[in-house]
């Protein structure tokens, strides 16, 4: 009889209220192999990981078997004791302690005594790095002084020193430079050859295809495919992750060719993005997409000088600008709708009309005295123009639905009569109907001549709204698509840093 697999999931499911995050996922992980787990945001990858590491307190449907025995970790400590080590995107380290102290961190410091013998601990640490990863390290160095790669290797060694048999890596390469990724992969393969299993979660198809032996693909909480290394194919993977190719219902729009509203030349921000150049015409909707960490949201913020880029030039209506703070960008006619409505956009303790008039206070007041009548008029005219559903302009902002709150943020800028609106994740966290409505609003405002830059990870939205889509990968544009020339798979492919596909236009 063959021994049971290391880990077997049977019809694993999890729902949060009415939202089903994971539906009847069954899969097996064997010893000494590297598995990939792929899927879009919201496909259920992190839910699966959190169940395995005990973060959901054992509250799930279906069964998990570890070595053929039922396993339902109720907290991270239980999962760790059972031999499951997890790396989250946020690395839990103590930057002011040494490498060795981080490896053996615990109430007894690796079981030495009340007085730790640092030379011995450091020698053990060095020995572990050598035998497990074949890596030389200075164990006395503060971990905060080490590079991102060293920090991850330290966590690997820490998990292994606690007898981990399955190591789950959640997007471990986002913070790493390419050379460090190669070193991490060498270390991971070494661990596999020592019989340890790894579950590697990544958005990046090239990395998944290079490293893993098998790939499981999740979509909408379901396991949709399971591929062996021999049959890996980038196109197939990308389309499986994205689901069926969507029919493009994009309307064609004419964008006048005049002086660009905004022109960006060789914009750069150290460590975030480099050498970005593009133009936005009046009435044009420019989409920018890319994975988390690709520089997408940093670019959005840099266009509003929050904070400004370090290098390059921005021209508004053909005139060069020098922005130091958001105020300068506002004065030039730029508006910014941030991705996190609640923490960066709205003031919960102010009413709707004050939230609406906030960027416009000067025109609503005479020498500091706020005219409530004018504020109310402004609120009512914006309400009519954008069809914001509210009981009363003086009602609390929290009484509005997510979609209407987003409209309030757009309206706030419309009151300043801007030339261009930068929106980060324009419809995150609003329901489907409101998504549609906000999309229509953006198209209507663009027809009136307002230019838009939509920085979004929602590909469907960009394909529907944007006249042009620029794709960022690792801080550079990898592709540009005109309306109607791209599919979801193309965008996913380009976001993953793959080379340009037919249909894309090279960026000069």
């Amino acid at each position, binding site marked *: 009889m063959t021994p049971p697999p290391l880990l077997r999931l049977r019809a694993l499911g999890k729902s949060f209220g009415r939202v089903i995050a994971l539906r009847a996922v069954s899969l097996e992980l064997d010893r000494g192999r590297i598995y990939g787990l792929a899927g879009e945001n919201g496909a259920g990858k992190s839910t699966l990981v959190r169940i395995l590491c005990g973060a959901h307190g054992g509250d799930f449907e279906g069964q998990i078997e570890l070595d053929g025995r039922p396993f339902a970790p109720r907290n*991270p*400590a239980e999962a*760790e004791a059972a031999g499951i080590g997890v790396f989250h995107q946020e690395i*839990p*380290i*103590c*930057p*002011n*302690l*040494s490498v060795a*102290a*981080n490896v053996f*961190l*615990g*109430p*007894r*410091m690796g079981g*030495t*005594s*009340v*007085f*730790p013998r640092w030379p011995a601990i450091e020698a053990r640490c060095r020995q572990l790095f050598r035998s497990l990863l*074949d*890596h*030389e*390290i*200075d164990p*006395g*160095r*503060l971990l*905060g*002084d*080490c*590079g991102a790669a*060293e920090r991850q290797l330290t966590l690997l060694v820490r998990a292994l020193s606690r007898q981990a048999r399955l190591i789950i890596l959640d997007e471990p390469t986002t913070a790493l430079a390419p050379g460090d990724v*190669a*070193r991490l*992969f*060498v270390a991971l*393969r*070494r661990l596999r*050859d020592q019989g340890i299993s790894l579950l590697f979660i990544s958005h990046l198809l090239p990395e998944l295809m290079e490293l893993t032996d098998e790939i499981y693909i999740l979509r909408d909480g379901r396991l949709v495919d399971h591929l062996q290394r021999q049959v890996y194919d980038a196109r197939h993977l990308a389309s499986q992750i994205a689901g069926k190719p969507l029919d493009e219902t994009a309307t064609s729009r004419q964008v006048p060719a005049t002086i660009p509203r905004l022109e960006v030349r060789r914009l750069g921000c150290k460590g975030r993005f480099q050498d970005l150049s593009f133009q936005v015409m009046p009435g044009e909707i420019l989409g920018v997409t890319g994975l988390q960490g690709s520089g997408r949201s940093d670019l959005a913020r840099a266009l509003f000088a929050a904070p400004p880029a370090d290098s390059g030039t921005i021209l508004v209506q053909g005139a060069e600008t020098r922005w130091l703070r958001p105020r300068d960008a506002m004065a030039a006619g730029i508006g910014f709708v941030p991705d996190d409505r609640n923490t960066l956009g709205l003031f919960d303790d102010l009413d709707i009309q004050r939230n609406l008039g906030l960027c416009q206070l000067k025109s609503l007041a005479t020498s500091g005295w706020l005219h409530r009548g004018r504020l109310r008029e402004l609120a009512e005219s914006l309400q009519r123009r954008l069809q914001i559903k509210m009981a009363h302009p003086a009602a609390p902002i929290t009484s509005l639905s997510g979609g209407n709150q987003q409209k309030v943020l757009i309206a706030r800028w419309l009151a300043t009569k801007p030339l261009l609106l930068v929106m980060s994740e324009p419809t995150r966290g609003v329901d489907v109907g409101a998504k549609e409505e906000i999309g229509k609003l953006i198209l209507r405002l663009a027809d009136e001549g307002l230019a838009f830059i939509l920085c979004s990870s929602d590909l469907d939205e960009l394909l529907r709204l944007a006249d042009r889509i620029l794709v960022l990968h690792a801080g550079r544009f990898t592709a540009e698509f005109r309306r109607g020339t791209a599919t979801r798979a193309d965008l996913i492919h380009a976001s993953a840093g793959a080379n340009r596909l037919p249909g894309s236009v090279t960026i000069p």
Partner: protein
Amino acid sequence: MNAQSPIPSPEPVLPPRRPLNWTAKVRDLGVLVAAIGIGVAFALIAPGFLSTYNLLNLLRQTAELGIIAMAMTVLIVSGEFDLSVGATYAVTGVVAGLLFQVAGINIWLAGCGGLSAALFLGFLNGLLVTSARMNSFIATLATMMVFRGLAMVLSQGQPLSSFPDLAFFEVVGRAKLFGSIPVPILWLAVWGFLLYVLLHRTTYGVTVFATGDNREAANLAGIRTDRVKRLNFLLTALAAGVAGLISMGYLKTVTPTQGTGLELEAIAAAVIGGTSMRGGVGSVGGAFLGALIMAEIRTGLVLMGTNAYLQDACVGLIIAIAVILNMRISASRGT
């Protein structure tokens, strides 16, 4: 199956080797240089600053603040504050004095009673912060006022004095070792040694650093961070109690208002000594030097005959300069 090896050779990836805990060393050394530099400056300006008498006096004056500041450092390293130490300091003296004068208990037992009261107050602080989940700034601000009120109520606002001549007062605060060294300096040295070993040489010390550095990571490593914080609140309260007894011994007087503002001076000393207010960084030696620098400036200015009101302003200036220098040192370390 080893197709991917050989590994990129390890030599080029090894970081340039630095002495261990480079930043911490530089920071402590910087504070030491500052302490010596300020001393030299005053010696040049104010004759008499370098006299043995003055230096011993300086250390004696540092004793109470230093004892509290070093314990405060341990607490701040674990990520919390204690604003109630000044009040605890008063409660200790008042309780010990009352137990002796009113209840007629043996003075040594009365002293132990004062320390027990201090420990109980520290226990309450720990409970508020770890079990009630209060922010330690708010929690100890509240208990500071409660404890001060307790000292006032117990003593009816009156100072306790005219204690008889007993060995207790000599041993705790008045005696001079070898005929010249005031005994509080001995207690400062003993307490400093104990705390140095605790924070920098034991596993407990590592758990304190880890708790303040990244509580999440410490919890995941199996460290009971709540317990660490509770113990550290006991430690600051004990330090306040010890300092309270030293003051009682030296002055042979106890007032319910004594130690007002001591908590802020202790935090200031810790900060001058390089302790990060965000937790995870700090050293016992630095806190001692911080307390010493503050005492140096006060005595130096007195010897120079400066206006007494100027002293606080100067100490404030030193705090600002010290914090700016600390941030520079931290920022200059590699990534």
